[in-house]
């Protein structure tokens, strides 16, 4: 009598239904695949960023446009002259920056220009680029730096 009772109790299903688990995981997977931007830009200049302490984060990634300044990477490990790169192309003439950036500003009025400048670059080039940004009236800039390692 009692054994029969026990048998009945064990027959009740205690499993969590796992049939929908793959679907849930797939949903997560698709979310991650869609949300992560795999926009790879081949940076043709070397940019070892300087370190700083007073740094802020830029949360809105879609507002940011990058300008790379640094010695150009050549074949092998050699480095060439200081060059400026916007998006995928090296800028031959610094004066061309104003038209490029102005067009970007029209597309995104709250544009932030992040300057990723190599730490060995000279200020002359940086100031020239800044002057061009003023001409294009893209005034919000950011000197991209790494967080200073605790000393």
């Amino acid at each position: 009598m009692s054994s029969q009772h026990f048998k009945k109790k064990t027959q009740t299903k205690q499993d969590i239904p796992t049939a929908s688990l793959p679907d849930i995981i797939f949903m997560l997977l698709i979310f991650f695949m869609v949300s992560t931007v795999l926009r790879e830009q081949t940076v043709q200049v070397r940019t070892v960023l300087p370190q700083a302490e007073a740094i802020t984060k830029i949360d809105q990634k879609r507002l940011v446009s990058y300008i790379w300044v640094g010695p150009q990477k050549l074949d092998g490990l050699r480095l060439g002259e200081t060059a400026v790169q916007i998006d995928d192309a090296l800028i031959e003439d610094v004066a061309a920056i104003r038209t490029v950036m102005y067009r970007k500003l029209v597309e995104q009025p709250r544009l932030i220009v992040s300057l990723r400048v190599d730490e060995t670059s000279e200020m002359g080039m940086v100031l020239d680029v800044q002057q061009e940004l003023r001409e294009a009236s893209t005034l919000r800039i950011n000197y991209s730096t790494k967080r200073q390692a605790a000393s």
Partner: protein
Amino acid sequence: MANLIKKKKRTEAEIPTSSMADIAFLLLIFFLVTTTIDVDTGIGMVLPPKLEEDVEPPPIKERNVLKILVNEQGLVLVEDEPSAVQLIRDAVKTHVLNEGVDPRYAETAGRALVSIKTSRETPYNAYVDVLDEVWMAYFEMWDSEARRLGYQNYQHYVDTVVEGQGLQNAIREKIKAQISIAEPDAA
């Protein structure tokens, strides 16, 4: 015998789906690991707008400007006196928080201005170091001002008053971070 044949027919031809979740998990972990959601960090600045041809720049009193000069070797002059990069922070603080006491420094915190001038050959590294120190001076001044007003720190103030209540940032209004990047002299 007939019984056996019947049993064989009834086995269902299903693909086992129990491992599906594991495969999906592996893919998910792969994507989680490979994608870098790197947040760009840096020192934010706002460049001055382009000057109109016929408009004179607004007059600024000499005493309100703290001049910092960085030369080709990365050496620093503060108000025409040689200084170390580490001393800039205190120099900026005394300059901004002077409130008209010392005639060499600023009249009020709102009028104080820090001017950083480099030469064209100054390494970018040295410039960022100096700019970093100036910003740190402002951050520390905002922090102590926020503590004076009874908040834990400046970030707490921003979170509660500026973000929470939508009010103006009174601390930044009082101690304005006015940093000007001067053009190098034409050689």
